[in-house]
């Protein structure tokens, strides 16, 4: 089987990650709930992983690394915990439903939303930020890389705009954590939301948000913390304030190993290979009559994602055919990003998304290209 659905999740995880999770499952107790060896082992790895993640994304304080079950949960914590009735928020048409749906919920509670529109290449116009700014604008939330088009946003430019206008900047790094270098301090990112199971090569059920400054944020969950047992309300001590319940120490141990794995290879090397694969595929299909490619390929500083359509075929039909006939796994339809599809008028047809990872190679891409040619013939 050829796996080109890495934007959904990466498979064939590194053996180091699998071994780490396995070790944790055999040896870890509940972190923060005792002082016997198994509990302390778990606490040690959680502590270690916070420090590693803080260094990996260059945040100011490892004590503001909050673990969640994925980036969707992280984005919900950030968006719902900060926005209040009467606030205005700026976002983009590139967003995934993990950003849009929390925003729509807040909209029903009196939060106002403005959108940075995308052009025919799926790019936003950064000058529009100024036009959308209002007196009550509280935050900007954007993806770092589109999960449909693969386009990267210039988060540093948006971060600088937010800093200059005293706005909170939340970045959805679901497609970029582990794929693209992220420097929270340099990019002026206030909250980074990430998932562990995509380009970080970690287990599903892991992720988090990293806060880079003091932000007034309300907890979404309350419960057991292992600290301040007799307080009626969730203790306002970070990261515990946003982390009620037993942490997924098994998964976090996997993330710990996955950061080591990426650092060992080097994120630049990973990105270079993925750029090569993306360009290789793009160059092979760009001249094929009947294939429409979406996104900006003038700029190759992007995520390894190529979304296409074949003539007027339903993307679901093409994706099913690719798997049934050629055992090539892709992702059709809407990719949980409704505004992108509205903008490209592909709500009905969808798109067939090919997303690559460090594990893929050009032979696999050749097979996919030949399959597409065969379908069109």
């Amino acid at each position: 089987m050829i796996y080109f659905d890495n934007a959904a999740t990466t498979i064939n995880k590194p053996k180091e990650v699998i071994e780490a999770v396995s070790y944790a499952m055999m040896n870890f107790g509940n972190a923060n709930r005792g002082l016997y060896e198994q509990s302390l082992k778990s606490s040690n790895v959680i502590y270690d992983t916070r420090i590693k993640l803080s260094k990996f994304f260059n945040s100011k304080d490892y004590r503001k690394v909050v673990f969640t079950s994925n980036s969707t949960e992280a984005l919900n914590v950030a968006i719902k915990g900060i926005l209040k009735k009467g606030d205005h928020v700026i976002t983009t048409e590139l967003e995934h439903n993990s950003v849009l749906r929390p925003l729509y919920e807040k909209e029903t509670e009196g939060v106002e939303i403005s959108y940075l529109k995308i052009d025919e290449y799926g790019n936003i116009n950064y000058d529009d930020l100024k036009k959308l700014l209002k007196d009550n604008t509280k935050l900007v939330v954007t993806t770092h890389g589109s999960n449909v088009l693969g386009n990267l946003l210039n988060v540093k430019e948006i971060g600088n705009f937010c800093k200059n206008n005293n706005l909170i900047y939340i970045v959805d790094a679901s497609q970029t954590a582990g794929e693209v270098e992220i420097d929270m301090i340099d990019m002026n990112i206030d909250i980074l939301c990430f998932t562990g199971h995509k380009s970080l090569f970690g287990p599903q059920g892991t992720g988090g948000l990293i806060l880079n400054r003091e932000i007034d944020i309300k907890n979404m969950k309350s419960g057991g913390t292992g600290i301040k047992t007799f307080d009626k309300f969730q203790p306002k001590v970070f990261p515990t304030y946003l982390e009620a319940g037993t942490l997924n120490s098994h998964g976090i141990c996997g993330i710990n190993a996955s950061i080591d794995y990426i650092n060992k290879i080097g994120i630049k090397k990973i990105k270079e290979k993925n750029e090569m694969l993306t360009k290789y595929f793009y160059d092979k299909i760009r001249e094929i009559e009947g294939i429409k490619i979406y996104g900006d390929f003038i700029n190759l500083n992007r995520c390894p994602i190529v979304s296409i359509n074949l003539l007027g075929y339903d993307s679901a039909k093409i994706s099913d055919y690719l798997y049934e006939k050629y055992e090539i796994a892709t992702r059709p339809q809407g990719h949980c990003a409704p505004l992108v599809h509205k903008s490209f008028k592909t709500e009905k047809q969808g798109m067939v998304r090919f997303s690559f990872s460090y594990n893929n190679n050009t032979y696999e891409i050749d097979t996919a290209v030949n399959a597409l040619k065969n379908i069109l013939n």
Partner: protein
Amino acid sequence: MIESKKVLVITFSMSDDVISMDRFYKSQNIDGKVIHIPSSLTAGCGRAYQVDIKYKDYMKKILKENGIFFEGIYEIKI
């Protein structure tokens, strides 16, 4: 019967800080250990750190110097 003795107990607001302390002390070869916080003390975290009373002055100095977050230092008999 369990013997009682006077010791130094450092309290914390969260578990990560206890781990940070434990690692630092081990790196300095100081004989200390993580304990459950004695019921006579109150602190955020249910874990605390116990060291020999002889480290009292040294303790205050190095906690600050090494940026280890703690809530309090107590001399108690446990």
